[in-house]
């Protein structure tokens, strides 16, 4: 919680779960408290205001069976949540979050690999016969991959680079054709094995495909990340049945499982996001609720100050609203708000979406500003409700794109233990950092 | 009210002295008592007053910290008594040129503010508690001497001194017994209590600031306060207890001092 006057202490995960349970027990059968009318805000229509005023609604969604799953959802452990929730809206949302996170990693990879290739080529001496050419080649060809579009043909420039790599190093097998989904994923695995950069290389798969990516229990777990291998987006869609996000948003009543712990304030925000962006990766970045708050523009250039102003403007709306909300709701509602840090969490998720948008629009400095304001510094090295995995993937990407290769490693190191798949990315970016530092003198000082 | 202050003050001072004796006898090892895993415990039956953020027993450190100022306070008192009382008595009883010389010399010492004098000497000779004590005693000697001088020169001119002499009492005894012990005892004790309070303030503030006073890991109420103050989510007693101890002891010393009156004063 980032408000000065009501910052509660962070309870550990188990404690949070316990508190949620206690709250639920306390509020089951409780009467809904009347809606406050003192200062009305557009935010009063949000799901946070709803459950704060009517804690039993929350209990309705988070029942005894699914409590652990929702706790996982709250803490950003989306894979756990997706496995624990029954098929339906909740699971679809967990899978969507996971998919977006994987795509964030894919974006990071698609920045890191070409950077590595370009840097490697720019240093026109000391060609190595190590795995670098392979990685560079994959970087080039997988630059525009997206899970739903499949592999596109290399552009002319990419092709030229590929040729250069092939001729210069002779390491990339001549005539390697990279034209299929399976083969690309397979190559990624091979690369990891060949490069020897991971302790446990996946099995080489050249020739003995296909991998049944959809089959339960056969999670393909490459150590160099490849988004194509993670068909989570497809799963997310399947969990919703035939109904799309947009439709679902308008139908749901009450829409709590669609919104709980998410960055969208209302179903209107959700359907706006679904309409604006088919990938749904920027839910919460815009929508009717935020528009009503009259937040300033980011400005036309990649100016971090403009981003900071925007966050300050958001805080100026959220802080008094939250304070007012805490004053008016019942003790159960207050406990929900403070124990789960709901407002702070949504704030963090909105900044995350803004950062993602900024990165898509080639404004990495602004993205950095958003992310630095989103991160909960007190527990900056652990994942949690305010620090979801995407935060670190995005921060690493923003760092990389602003030349801070070494800092990207710091962010990635947080993900490494819970998500071993980033090991390969970590090595790639590590190589890039080393490459950039070749021939430099370092400086060191005391203290 | 005055009686209550005096009585409770005396009890506190007696407790401080007792604490000091206990700390000298207990042999608490300040170095060994570090347990980060037990950091910030709140008071409980197993650890009275809880632990600080290094897991050290606050109660034991509080007791042990009395060594930081009681010993030096006593030394300082002895020094200021040895220097201040005889010179004050001599100048007060004899008067004349000897009083002039003595009072001039003390005025020179007193012209340097006490705190500055202590810092100055510590800067030259290091901040050993013994040095601190001697200097604090020296810093208080002029005041003590002057107070004794004033009182004795006032008493000296009274008829009873003549009468005492007429009874055949020797001058030394007249000064030591009739004038000093009977006439100045409360005044001297008051000064000594102020000196004790001064030493406590000096020691705790120097230790709080660090550099001069008692250095970690040896405890002083001052460095205990500095060490714990501002620690989030810690044991509030870890800094409140020394702060309270400082306040209580100071209040006791000054309270007792201010209730001391010359008995039977005409």
């Amino acid at each position: 919680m980032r408000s000065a006057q009501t910052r509660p202490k962070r309870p550990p995960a188990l404690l949070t779960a316990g508190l949620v349970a206690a709250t639920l027990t306390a509020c089951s059968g409780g009467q809904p408290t009347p809606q406050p009318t003192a200062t009305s805000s557009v935010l009063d229509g949000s799901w946070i205001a709803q459950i704060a005023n009517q804690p039993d609604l929350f209990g309705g969604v988070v029942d005894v069976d699914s409590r652990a799953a929702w706790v996982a959802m709250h803490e950003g452990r989306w894979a756990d949540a997706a496995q624990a929730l029954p098929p339906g809206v909740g699971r679809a949302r967990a899978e969507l979050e996971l998919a977006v996170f994987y795509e964030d990693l894919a974006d990071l990879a698609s920045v890191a690999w070409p950077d590595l290739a370009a840097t490697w080529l720019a240093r026109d001496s000391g060609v190595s016969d190590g795995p670098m050419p392979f990685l560079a080649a994959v970087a080039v060809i997988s630059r525009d991959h997206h899970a739903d579009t499949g592999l596109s043909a290399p552009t002319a420039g990419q092709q030229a680079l590929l040729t250069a790599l092939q001729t210069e190093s002779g390491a990339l097998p001549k005539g390697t054709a990279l034209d299929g989904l399976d083969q690309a994923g397979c190559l990624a695995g091979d690369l990891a094995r060949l490069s020897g950069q991971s302790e446990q290389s996946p099995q080489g798969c050249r020739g003995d495909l296909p991998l049944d990516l959809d089959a339960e229990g056969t999670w393909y777990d490459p150590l160099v990340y490849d988004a194509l291998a993670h068909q989570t987006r497809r799963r997310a869609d399947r969990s919703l049945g035939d109904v799309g996000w947009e439709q679902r948003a308008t139908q749901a009543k009450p829409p709590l499982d669609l919104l709980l712990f998410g960055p969208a304030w209302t179903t209107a925000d959700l359907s706006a996001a679904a309409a604006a962006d088919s990938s749904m990766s920027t839910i919460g970045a815009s929508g009717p609720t935020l528009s009503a708050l009259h937040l300033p523009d980011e400005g036309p250039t990649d100016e971090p100050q403009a981003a900071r102003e925007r966050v300050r403007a958001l805080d100026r709306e959220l802080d008094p609203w939250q304070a007012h909300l805490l004053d008016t709701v019942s003790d159960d509602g207050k406990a929900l708000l403070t124990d789960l840090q709901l407002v702070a969490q949504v704030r963090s998720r909105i900044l995350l979406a803004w950062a993602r948008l900024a990165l898509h629009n080639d404004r990495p400095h602004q993205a950095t500003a958003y992310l630095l304001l989103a991160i909960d510094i007190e527990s900056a090295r652990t994942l949690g409700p305010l620090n979801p995995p995407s935060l670190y993937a995005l921060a690493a990407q923003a760092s990389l794109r602003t030349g801070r290769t070494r800092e990207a490693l710091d962010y990635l190191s947080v993900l490494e233990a819970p998500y071993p798949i980033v090991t390969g990315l970590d090595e790639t970016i590590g190589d890039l950092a080393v490459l950039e530092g070749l021939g430099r003198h370092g400086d060191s000082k005391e203290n | 009210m005055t009686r209550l202050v005096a009585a409770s003050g005396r009890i506190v001072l007696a407790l401080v002295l007792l604490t000091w004796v206990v700390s000298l006898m207990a042999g608490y090892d300040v170095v060994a008592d570090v347990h980060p895993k037990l950091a910030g415990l709140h008071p409980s039956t197993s650890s009275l007053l809880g632990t600080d953020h290094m897991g050290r027993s606050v109660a034991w450190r509080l007791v042990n910290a009395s060594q930081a100022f009681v010993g030096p306070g006593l030394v300082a008192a002895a020094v200021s008594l040895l220097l201040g009382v005889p010179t004050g008595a001599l100048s007060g009883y004899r008067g004349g040129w000897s009083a002039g010389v003595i009072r001039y010399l003390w005025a020179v010492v007193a012209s340097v503010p006490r705190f500055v004098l202590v810092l100055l000497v510590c800067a030259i000779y290091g901040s050993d508690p013994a040095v601190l004590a001697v200097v604090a005693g020296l810093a208080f000697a002029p005041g003590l001497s002057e107070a004794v001088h004033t009182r004795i020169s006032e008493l000296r001119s009274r008829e009873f001194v003549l009468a005492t002499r007429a009874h055949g009492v020797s001058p030394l005894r007249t000064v030591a017994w009739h004038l000093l012990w009977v006439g100045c005892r409360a005044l001297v004790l008051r000064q000594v209590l102020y000196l004790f309070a001064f030493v406590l303030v000096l020691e705790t503030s120097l230790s709080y600031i660090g550099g001069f006073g008692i250095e970690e890991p040896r405890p002083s109420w001052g460095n205990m306060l500095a060490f714990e103050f501002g620690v989030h989510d810690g044991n509030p007693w870890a800094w409140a207890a020394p702060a309270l101890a400082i306040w209580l002891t100071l209040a006791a010393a000054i309270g007792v001092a201010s209730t001391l009156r010359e008995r039977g004063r005409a």
Partner: protein
Amino acid sequence: MPSRPTSTSALGTLTALPLCLCWALSAPAQASELRYAEDQAPAIVNPLFATTMSEARLDELLFEGLYNDNKDLATSPDLAASAQMSSDRMEMTITMRQGVTWQDGTPVTANDVAFTIAAMKDKGTLSTEQGRVDWIDEATAIDDRTVRLRFVRPEARPEDKLFFKILPAHRFDGTAIKRTDPFRTNPIGSGPFKLDSYNDDGSISMSRYEGHRDRAGLDQITMREVSDKNYQAKLLMYESLEALVRVLPRDLAVLQSNRKVELYPYQTNSWWYLGFNLHRDPFKDPRVRTALAEMIDVDALLAPIGTGDSLTGPFVKSSPFYNHQVPAFVNDPIQVADLLEQAGYVNNGDGWKKDGKPLTLTVSAHKNLESAQEVVINLQSQLQSQGVTVQVDFLDEAAWRASVWRDRDYDLILSQWSFDRNEDIREQFHSKGSRNFTGYANKEVDRLLDLARDTMDPQEKKQALRDVHKLVHDDVPMVFLWTLDSYSAMSTDIRNVVIHPFYFFTWATDWAMQ
């Protein structure tokens, strides 16, 4: 222990304390003044002798190099305008930027560059920065705006190494520059800010250098010495400061919840260590060092001072050079006893002794190293319980420089190294390294460090440094402790803040006030 300097500095602390309070009550800063806090004001403002981060930060405002990082951390010309490489890559001809003047009005010329390089190379200059120019054979000023550098061997990207600050030749008598040169208190640079005055309260006032090509957004920058770190966060919140360079971990929560304050990560790839004096008995003996290292419970030392990663070698854990295969020392009393007995010590229940003399050591720590007190107290307790007597000595800046940097007069030091993104540990561990005051020498480490410096193969460099990690862990010239997250805090009144990950003020010209 020389008690005199310690005491005088405490005297300074004492006098500074009321001043501190005065600031808190003083009127708000003048328009466009940034006041930032350092634990201790640098005694020397001369980039040739900068050994601490506070000095490096200050130098960044006052001086410029030929090249510097742009905001994307790419090398870009600063005092240089353009450069030509010879075809054999053995020579570089740099054309200087036109119209640049020193803060005293004298033009910056090629001669200043040649002079600075010569001064750094001069054996009479006892600088720790020598290593930065030993690859340059000779620098010659061709004319006022052209300087030619000859290299020792071919260089691929020499501009990456030309970040060192250029000094004004006309301010010095010769190229042998002493630490005590009057320049240290009266520095003249070409940077965006110029030093106005050293003030009685330990602060240093700087104002915008109007002759600089990029007009700085701030009128003034003031470095304030706030030796008690506990006050720093408060001064920031009471708006008596605009910036804190490093926030104490314990203050993070309260600053983060303050909407008037913004926190910026200031990761300087720094790690803490306990360094042995390898010139001294009994620390010459690796068995004693290993035994001591095994006695120390690093995680228990770390627990009271914050969250961080404990390390096994001279790199931060997220570094590509960190060797994850190296196991941490395990506290095994039997092994410890074995090692010490091999080294000739016996313990009959009253501590380890050799020839009747107890195994004792003094831990020296810099007074301004935050949380050092906790670490040292903890260490003392840990070692004492295992039969080693430990004395503690907190040194102030002057005593630290004298006994650690100059005289190498210590047993064990607790300190922290900060590295820029290259994480170049050569100066610390190479037998000829200028910051190798432990006296560590290992031929294999020297070879690997040379290899890491010279190779053009990233894999090879990575492997070499990972091997160095293993070797220095096994040789135990230091006990590697941990790395802590660090943040700087700045008032939201300061706009357009982007801080350099190491030098902090590199882009301060852009900073402006609301």
